[in-house]
């Protein structure tokens, strides 16, 4: 499913490449594809609609950075928007109150409340050095209280032995008394799973909340949840004063769109994600990661990131201006280009990140050799400034010196110079033949193969 989605989004990018800039029409198509991608990730339909409208409003008329294709720019905007939404109000768990601080967990059946209660207790004990008491108010599910007791034993935190013949509200009161009496820092109250349409049970959890007055009321949601997550989240949000969300079972291959839905509907930050079977498998939520996964295009995004962060755009523009003035592409320019490729993690890393369509073209290219780039840089660095500006002065004796200086053979120096001359010729013909944009585009496509040979 992941591959399928990535493929679809690559298609989106390819379709946009070379169109110059974003218009109402071409983003219309693209946004429809993004809408489908988000729906496939299980983001709730109303949330998708609101989100897409927001993005549309933002991108129309937006200036696109020259170093990005329109498709990349759009994807980046979408990603930024997603990260902003997911990460808004991002914070760590609140423990700033007079102990015992009460944390209440609520959610649907099978969301993973009890397992999360154990994980959270372990986290608070180990990372925050808190003395934690676990208490269950689940008198319905067979052996639910026992499950929590076992977990408390495994992670060595306190456990309040709830009597299942008492009411959940009474049990919550008792657990709080015990937490006060025995000077616990934190009391985690687990509740029975309940359907949001079960009004008796929703009233019950409200009563439990009133009994313990929690500082944190966390909604536990399965990252594999579908469209209905939004209804559940809304109902729980109306019944309780939710303060945060924990996303469970995030170690599978679900895209986790429910996280966005729940985030939007409750307006509360996601504090943690559960990432595995073990008690230690609880991680602090990172908006970047979850947003990237919902969108399902980490490869494209990291390329965009690399390009914008590391390519010196001024340098590229300087080169373009120089060539336009009719000056020759010299070895200094080649050095800069090679240096950029190296900064981005080498050719192999770059090729890995390119969309499929570009990859198809790159398929004819000999396998990129990053050592080769290093060697070529070494050769150029062994030249004098004059040699770099005017490669024609490099005679046999200079070649020998350069070879010695770079620790390579004269043949390597010869090969570099030969390649360079070809490239220089190519640059010249392109400056004559067409505009700046065409030249830059051709450079982007042709530079690595030319160098690799």
């Amino acid at each position, binding site marked *: *499913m992941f591959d399928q989605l990535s493929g679809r989004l690559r298609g989106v990018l390819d379709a946009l490449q070379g169109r110059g800039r974003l218009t109402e029409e071409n983003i219309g198509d693209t946004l429809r594809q993004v809408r*489908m991608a988000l*729906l*496939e*990730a*299980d983001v*709730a*339909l*109303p949330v998708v*609609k609101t989100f897409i409208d927001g993005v549309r409003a933002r991108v129309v008329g937006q200036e696109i950075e020259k170093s990005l294709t329109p498709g990349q720019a759009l994807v980046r905007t979408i990603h930024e928007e997603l990260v902003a939404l997911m990460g808004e109000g991002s914070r760590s768990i609140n423990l700033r109150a007079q102990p015992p601080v009460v944390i209440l967990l609520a959610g*649907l*059946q*099978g*969301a*993973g409340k009890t*397992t999360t209660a*154990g994980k959270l207790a372990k986290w608070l004990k180990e990372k925050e050095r808190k003395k934690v008491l676990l208490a269950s108010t689940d*008198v*319905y*599910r*067979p*052996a*639910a*209280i*026992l*499950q*929590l*007791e*076992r*977990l408390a034993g*495994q992670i060595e935190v306190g456990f309040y032995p709830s009597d*299942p*013949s008492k009411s959940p509200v009474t049990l919550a009161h008792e657990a709080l008394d015990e937490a006060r009496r025995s000077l616990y820092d934190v009391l985690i109250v687990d509740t029975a799973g309940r*359907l*949001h*349409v079960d009004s*008796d*049970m929703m009233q019950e959890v409200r009563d439990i909340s009133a009994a313990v007055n929690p500082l944190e009321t966390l909604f536990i949601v*399965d990252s*594999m*949840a*579908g*469209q*209905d*997550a*939004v*209804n*559940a989240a809304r109902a729980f949000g109306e019944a309780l004063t939710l303060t945060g969300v924990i996303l469970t*079972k995030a*170690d*599978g*291959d*679900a*895209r986790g*769109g*429910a996280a966005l839905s729940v985030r939007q509907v409750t307006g509360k930050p996601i504090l943690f994600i559960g990432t595995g*079977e073990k008690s230690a498998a609880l991680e602090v939520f990172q908006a970047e990661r979850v947003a990237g996964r919902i969108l399902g295009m980490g490869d494209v995004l990291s390329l965009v990131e690399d390009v914008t962060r590391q390519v010196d755009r001024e340098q590229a523009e300087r080169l373009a201006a120089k060539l336009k003035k009719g000056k020759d592409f010299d070895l200094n320019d080649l050095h800069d280009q090679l240096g950029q490729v190296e900064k981005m993690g080498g050719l192999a890393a770059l090729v890995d990140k390119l969309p499929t369509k570009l990859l198809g073209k790159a398929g004819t290219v000999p396998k990129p050799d990053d050592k080769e780039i290093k060697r070529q840089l070494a050769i150029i660095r062994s030249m004098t400034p004059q040699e770099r500006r005017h490669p024609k002065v490099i005679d046999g004796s200079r070649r020998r010196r350069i070879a010695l200086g770079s620790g390579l053979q004269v043949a390597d120096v010869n090969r570099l110079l030969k390649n360079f001359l070809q490239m220089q010729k190519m640059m010249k013909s392109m400056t004559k033949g067409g505009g700046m944009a065409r030249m830059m585009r051709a450079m982007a496509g042709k530079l690595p193969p030319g160098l690799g040979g």
Partner: protein
Amino acid sequence: MFGLKSKKDPENSGDGAQPGFFNRLRQKLKQSTSWLTHDLANLLPGGKINAAVLEELETRLITADVGVETTERILSGLRKQVERRELGDLDALLRALRSSLLDILKPCARPLNVRAGPRPFAILVVGVNGAGKTTTIGKLAHRFKAEGLKIMLAAGDTFRAAAVEQLAVWGERNQVPVIMQAAGTDPAAVIFDGMQSSRARDMDVLLADTAGRLHTQLNLMEELKKVKRVMGRVDPSAPHEVLLVLDAGQGQNALQQAKLFNEALGVSGIVLTKLDGTAKGGIVLAIADRLRLPIRFVGIGEGAEDFAVFDAEAFIDDLLATGKQAA
């Protein structure tokens, strides 16, 4: 033994007394002969089909977790019919929609017949964490027992804290024997034990529980394959049913679950749980369409009797009824 309460008054939860989810639904639907028309009436001045109607149908399918791909395919078929003027009015459109959904689901509505199989009929119950496997086993035990069958349970979830005890409670409620060993035991050993005991004690059905696992956890999927192999050592035809439990609240990932569990074990039946909420479980359409796995039962509540044989027509009627999701 654990002194547990039931949320429902046991007096009123006898098999005959409760109309059952689908029956309740049918009664509700009968109140208006053309419930969908009624539902969509405000969209349709004059009963003509327009873009808004099709969009509304798309919304309903998507919010029911049917998925973009399946939804698009169903709707493009309808659009073609509309273009060819085969569908004169809304009623015709809805009938066409309903029948295209039925075409997908009807072949998968194949009930499980344990009496037809060998004895003891061994059922291996699998699924992701929190899908409702143990509860489903409790309900199945209740149902089979009511049919006069001799049932045994095997507590193969030796991983999750107190899972064995949870199954033991269901065994006690239904008064059926439970084969269990200490937590942390190899699940294959426990289920092997269950296979032998059920044979020795002349049982009709063995229900084997397993720990919840994400379908992407390869080592845990291997563990299940081993369980299956070991069952086959006692009876080469076992397990006679590999039952995948799916939570109706799950989204598109449920298709992936079905695919991978099927690849690993050869799933022979699906139980769709937690259909008593507002989740519609529409992803089974995609599962039915692509994997053609039989859908056996639906879970519709917490009580032992809140369980029904899957009924494609009632399922579709519920799926298309107005979602509570507000725009």
